[in-house]
């Protein structure tokens, strides 16, 4: 069951020039799945909408969640200032998560671009499969050690400072990699390219999408993406990213 509650910050660490890693204590960690997200709320009353952040790691034993996020605006900059013992309002678990069963035992690409990399960590940790993790960065690397511990890691950087110069697809080509299933998260242009690649190779591909959100639970219809088929809930060609997603079969959505 979804909850909105006061979470306690267990630790906060800067892991890049504008990337932060935060562990939170929540009551609902047991129910969380990789690829899901939670909404974070500002303490400043002038900001009323949630900031959705993906689960990077889930420790169900300890009841804790790890978030890795980039500071891009007022909300994330506020969160970055929180320290151990502080609290923050959160709602979760939200969304569907990656369908691990579709990839279990198979040869898989776990592809993350930029701040789309974090959800791939818990996905890698839980997935029993031949995991090829392909992480695309602009320049600075983060989370690479954790990724290596949970699969074979391939890196691409736009500035060529590490791994393949270019994007995640360049890394696949350079290393002549292959897979039966793809899980991906990252900026829309990257997802679009991955979708095309999967179509070409004729392999199933799940992608995690983003849109501005208000309710985070499927009630307000703010966060839709276009679906190929008439959607069962909306009865139009719209799916709700917060509830029906954020993970969709790439062939079922328009990008």
């Amino acid at each position, binding site marked *: 069951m979804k909850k909105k509650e006061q979470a306690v910050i267990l630790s906060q660490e800067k892991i890049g020039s504008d990337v932060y890693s935060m562990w939170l204590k929540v009551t609902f960690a047991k129910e969380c799945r990789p690829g899901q997200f939670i909404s974070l709320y500002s303490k400043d009353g002038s900001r009323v909408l949630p900031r959705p952040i993906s689960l990077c790691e889930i420790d169900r034993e300890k009841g804790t969640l790890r978030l890795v996020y980039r500071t891009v605006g007022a909300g994330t900059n506020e969160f970055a200032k929180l320290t151990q013992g502080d609290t923050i309002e959160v709602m979760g678990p939200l969304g569907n998560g990656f369908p691990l069963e579709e990839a279990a035992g198979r040869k898989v690409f776990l592809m993350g671009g930029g701040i789309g990399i974090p959800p791939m960590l818990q996905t890698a940790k839980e997935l029993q499969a031949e995991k090829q993790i392909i992480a695309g960065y602009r320049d600075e690397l983060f989370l690479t050690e954790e990724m290596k511990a949970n699969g074979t890691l391939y890196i691409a950087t736009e500035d060529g400072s590490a791994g393949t110069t270019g994007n995640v697809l360049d890394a696949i080509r350079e290393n002549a990699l292959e897979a039966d299933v793809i899980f991906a998260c990252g900026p829309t242009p990257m997802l679009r390219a991955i979708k095309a690649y999967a179509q070409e190779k004729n392999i199933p591909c799940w992608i995690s999408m983003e849109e501005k959100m208000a309710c985070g639970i499927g009630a307000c219809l703010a*966060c839709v993406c276009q679906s190929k088929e008439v959607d069962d809930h909306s009865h139009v060609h719209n799916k709700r990213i917060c509830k029906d997603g954020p993970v969709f079969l790439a062939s079922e959505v328009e990008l």
Partner: protein
Amino acid sequence: MNTKVNIAGVELKNPVMTASGTFGSGEEYSEFVDLSKLGAVVTKGVANVPWSGNPTPRIAETYGGMINAIGLQNPGIEVFCKRDIPFLRQHDTRIIVNVCGHAEEEYLAVVERLAEEDIDMMEINISCPNVNANFLAFGQDPKKVEELTAKIKKAAKQPVIMKLTPNVTDITEIAKAAEAGGADAVSLINTLTGMKIDINRRTFAVANKTGGMSGPAVKPVAVRMVYQVAQAIKLPIIGMGGIATWEDAIEFILAGATAVSVGTANFYNPYATVEIAEGIEAYMKKNKVEDLRELIGAVR
């Protein structure tokens, strides 16, 4: 102690309802609140046929609120009647169906279709763009409001609430038109038209360019209009616009609202509706208010 209020012969167990479009048909929020604790659930606007709504981004945060341009996406009245009404009927709350349309015929089609349905009231959203009048809203023209209200009343089997837009020079003129047309109640305010520009991308923050502003930021405008309308007409008023706490609800009731709707606040506090209902009760107890109705319009 009495928290019940009566709108057009329909008794609500308490004055707290949901604002259309912010609460779906209740299902999603039923994970957070017991719908049976609410005076009524007002559903997302529904049209005669499915509407796809606007392109994304559909919303943007603004200072103390948000703007939205969902574009009234809805699955159409047929699906709605089969799926959403039976779901809501499982709960001990009133069902108010919000109705939208681009033209008179579209409104009437929905209203007629609802005649046989087990719902308690309907709320007519007249802020929809009127395709027959250059996309100005029906609700900005008193003559249109009176006409549309009269036609809907003729077709409707359940009490009719006309939902007013605040984007007008004189809200009392529109309220009087709804009253003259035979409305059973009015609700206000719908969203204030606003715009946000993203200075980095140098484009509009919502794809539709303009959107409807809601949330705590708009409350003073809403309270003012509820007060003005309460002085101008005799119909019961459902007040809304930025209600997030029981204090806000009491403020609207003192200004003249018989019931209140909670909208944007649900997004950041999914427990808001029930907390407000409980807060009103606690306030009444503390201040020895025997009957909530004593508070309605008590500040003049």
